[in-house]
């Protein structure tokens, strides 16, 4: 689980921590609408207006700007992005379509103009991660394909029975992952070819894991230049939908995009100011930017959502929906059909990892430029560290090296090596003899470790040990959603492994990798090369169409930015602050 934000960590504070720098206070009441004192109003409307004036809340965006406690406040997370939130929005849509003209329930970004009498319509799109399908497949004892169909049935059909609103489209994020993988390989190739201000420093670090991104921004800003500027598949698909879908379904319709992810930190990612339409669209400054992903729910929350609508997920039919529709975006449809026919060649027995396979995919794409070269795997000091070396055809020269680091402890060792030397030392450390002369500047030895970090050109980094299949939002081994037969089998396997958690994770990983098995079996080398070329052509076509359709430069669509988060929590500039820290410590009861 992510050390930054994990389900286990969520019971710390119910309210913001004492060190929260965001003042919690009731904001001055917003200037009330110019209301006509003689106007006849309804009770509903009055309560709705009152609700609007409630105390200011701490949003996830505030938390991202702070490195204090707040990121772990369960209350904040749950109220802003959860299955309940998704249902609330779905329900509000339903009631509005029946004819309520009140705009007060409108979601942020849908336009604040209260004089518009008609609420804008929404199109609901869900995107589902492969790790989510793997977790559910393991829990239900089904294949990931079948689970995909069951999720389709849940979101497109089941939850919309009884006259309620359901989703309009359900997408798999895997094809968009392949877009990211291709772009990531290009980014690395660019960095290797010419190092400039615009390209990330080597080694490039994967930016797909929001836990890791937040950790760097808050704790190790000096390492940020190494971070890949590429958006995650979740964010990329978000931008794609928000930028293209309205063009084909009408500008008066809002797209509400829900991502189903293995990870709590993905909620934080969706709340980033860098991932809104403000970064790729010319928008009026007065209008609140719309997020590219409106809401993220975890694998477990997907099942809870089903529960809330009285649907038993495990009893849904595993057969494909006969009439499943793709969003009416021509470029997207062409791409998805193409991606279906060109099944990814995948790993050829390499250990791709459980987090999308960034490293292996990038290495394979670079390998294709070195005829006859081969990839060597080396196990690291624990199962979450793996080194990959691209060897030249003669087997003598190491062309390049990459490594995978999963889990907080391994991240520590990577990050420490990437920090500039001066930040690794205590400033002004000195020792002196009792009767000695003045203190001498310390002679901290540089070097023993400084070069280690740079031997790699790329590092696939994920905050969770075991990678994304082990994300904080996944089902745990003792989850009540796991069907009995599976739970029994896991318990049996646990006797040998001495850990139910490990046995369970093994099953999820197996399900995750099973999606590729067919490809590996039929994966003959010549076929693979051809496949790769057609696959890349298919991706390039999508990107080309996307730019042409939106007239936005590709950079603005697929790349993002990061910022160091300055914090005054826990940092001390003098005696005064020490006192404050002591006071705070006493308040939380920790003492020294």
């Amino acid at each position, binding site marked *: 689980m992510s050390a930054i934000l994990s389900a286990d960590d969520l019971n710390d504070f119910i309210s913001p921590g004492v060190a929260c720098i965001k003042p919690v206070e009731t904001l001055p009441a917003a200037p009330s609408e110019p209301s006509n004192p003689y106007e006849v109003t309804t009770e509903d409307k009055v309560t709705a207006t009152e609700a609007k004036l409630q105390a200011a809340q701490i949003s996830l965006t505030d938390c991202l700007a702070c490195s204090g406690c707040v990121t772990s406040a369960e209350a904040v997370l749950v109220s802003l992005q959860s299955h309940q939130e998704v249902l609330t929005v779905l329900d509000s849509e339903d009631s509005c379509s029946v004819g309520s003209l009140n705009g007060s329930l409108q979601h942020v970004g849908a336009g604040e103009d209260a004089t518009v009498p008609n609420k804008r319509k929404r199109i609901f799109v869900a995107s589902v991660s492969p790790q989510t399908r793997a977790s559910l497949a393991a829990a239900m004892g089904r294949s990931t394909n079948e689970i995909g169909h069951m999720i389709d049935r849940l979101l497109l059909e089941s939850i919309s029975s009884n006259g309620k609103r359901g989703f309009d489209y359900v997408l798999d994020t895997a094809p968009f992952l392949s877009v990211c993988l291709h772009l990531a390989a290009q980014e690395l190739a660019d960095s290797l070819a010419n190092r400039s201000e615009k390209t990330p420093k080597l080694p490039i670090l994967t930016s797909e894991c929001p836990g890791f991104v937040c950790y760097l921004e808050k704790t190790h800003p000096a390492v940020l230049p190494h971070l890949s500027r590429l958006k995650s598949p979740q964010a990329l698909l978000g931008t794609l939908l928000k930028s293209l879908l309205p063009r084909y379904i009408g500008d008066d319709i809002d797209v509400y995009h829900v991502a189903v992810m293995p990870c709590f930190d993905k909620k934080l990612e969706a709340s980033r100011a860098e991932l809104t339409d403000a970064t790729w669209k010319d928008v009026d400054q007065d209008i609140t930017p719309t997020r590219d992903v409106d809401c993220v729910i975890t694998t477990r929350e997907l099942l809870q959502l089903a529960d809330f609508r009285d649907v038993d997920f495990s009893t849904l039919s595993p057969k494909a929906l006969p009439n499943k529709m793709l969003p009416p975006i021509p470029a997207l449809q062409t791409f998805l059909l193409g991606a279906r026919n060109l099944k990814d060649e995948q790993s050829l027995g390499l250990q791709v990892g459980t987090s999308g396979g960034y490293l292996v995919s990038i290495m394979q794409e670079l390998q294709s430029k070195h005829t006859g070269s081969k990839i060597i795997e080396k196990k690291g000091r624990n199962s979450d560290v793996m080194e990959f070396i691209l060897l030249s055809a003669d087997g003598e020269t190491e062309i390049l090296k990459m490594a995978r680091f999963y889990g907080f*402890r391994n991240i520590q060792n990577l990050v420490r090596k990437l920090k500039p030397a001066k930040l690794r030392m*205590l400033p002004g450390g000195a020792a002196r003899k009792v009767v000695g002369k003045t203190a001498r500047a310390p002679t901290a030895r540089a070097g023993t470790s400084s070069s280690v970090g740079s031997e790699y050109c790329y590092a696939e980094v994920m905050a969770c*040990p075991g990678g994304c299949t082990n994300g904080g939002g996944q089902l745990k081994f003792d989850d009540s959603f796991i069907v009995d037969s599976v739970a029994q089998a896991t318990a049996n396997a646990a006797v040998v492994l001495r850990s139910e958690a490990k046995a369970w994770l093994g099953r999820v990983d197996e399900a995750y990798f099973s999606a590729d098995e067919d490809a590996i079996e039929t994966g003959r080398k010549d076929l693979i090369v051809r496949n790769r070329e057609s696959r890349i052509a298919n991706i390039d076509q999508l990107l080309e169409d996307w730019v042409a359709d939106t007239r936005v430069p590709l950079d603005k669509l697929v790349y993002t930015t990061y910022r160091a988060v300055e914090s005054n929590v826990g940092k001390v500039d003098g005696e005064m602050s020490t006192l404050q820290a002591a006071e705070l410590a006493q308040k939380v009861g920790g*003492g020294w």
Partner: protein
Amino acid sequence: MALKLVGNFPVQPDRVWCAAPHPHLPLVATASTDRAVRIYSLRDFSLVSTIEGGHKRSVRSISWKPNAKGESVLATGSFDSSTGIWHREERGTHGDGEQSLELNSEEREEDEEWRFAVVLDGHDSEVKSVAWSAGGSFLATCSRDKTVWIWEDMGNENYETIAVLQDHSQDVKMVAWHPEEELLASSSYDDTIRLYKEDTDDWVCCAVLTGHTSTVWSISFENNGHQSRLVSASDDQTARVWHRKPKPEKKEEEEEEEEEPSMQPPSIIKGTADETENWEEQACLPKVHTRTIYSVDWSKKTGLIATAGGDGRIVLYKEVGTENGLPDADSGASKEWKVIAQVPAAHGVYEINSVTWCPKWDKLGTTIDGELLLSTGDDGIVNIFEFSL
């Protein structure tokens, strides 16, 4: 029987948190709120050197690395959330060659300086305790950020994080290693003590010791080959002794195997299965303290336990046979703990932050019989006691 004050170190300007005797030299290091580490001689109780300027806030904890060859290595844990590693070359590493440390050695001054080597950062908040494992290959640190970290010394002043243990739900107050095994213990504001060991390639929590009803401030292992015991001191004003329960009888397992052979894993794998730590409370020391007990230390030499705390009192306990020589009716134990000495107001009105046993040395730098007990207080004083029969 009495605990007699035999001296003290020159007074320090601010609160002294703890003291740590050098593994083989007549030296003791102390950690202070004034951000300095002071090193004193145990031969004449004089100040030998001061290490300062490295940490930005209080140095809360110190630990000497055992088995450091040819040099002394000190780890310092600070409220500035970092851990520092300091080195000093040793001249004549054999006990008696240590005169060079203090004796007028103008020309050696440079060599004798403490050299700052590495800063280990990663903790989010104050580091509360640091401890080297018995073999010196691991360093454990714990923090107000609720985590316990284990670092491996990779040589060449290169340290790697090998575990970040997030089992505690609150501030972790202290870490301590088993004197022989690679078994780590931590105590916390969450009232528990946790034990950790390595499992395949990851460190895992293998036991949780519950019983204290408030913060567990301090823990100390017994150094006794044939059994493993741990003493803990708490804000609930008690000190408790915990022991590793003997492994269950083999017989039962064999019977089970016959009943359900299909459920049993192959015997090769099973060999490791009974390594799970099984600890339980063995005794609660006689209650004397009237306020929080901040520190406890189990003498490696005499088996005596010393405690001290907020009430300014130092208490010594000894394990003796029960009065009638028979096992106690309630606990079944044939031994019990008795208070054998105490010093009230050992630091006047000030609280005592730590008590530490350390070897006794003569003026020439040879270890002699007997043992000293150091207490460190909020008054900046380190008192030196000796227990005599």
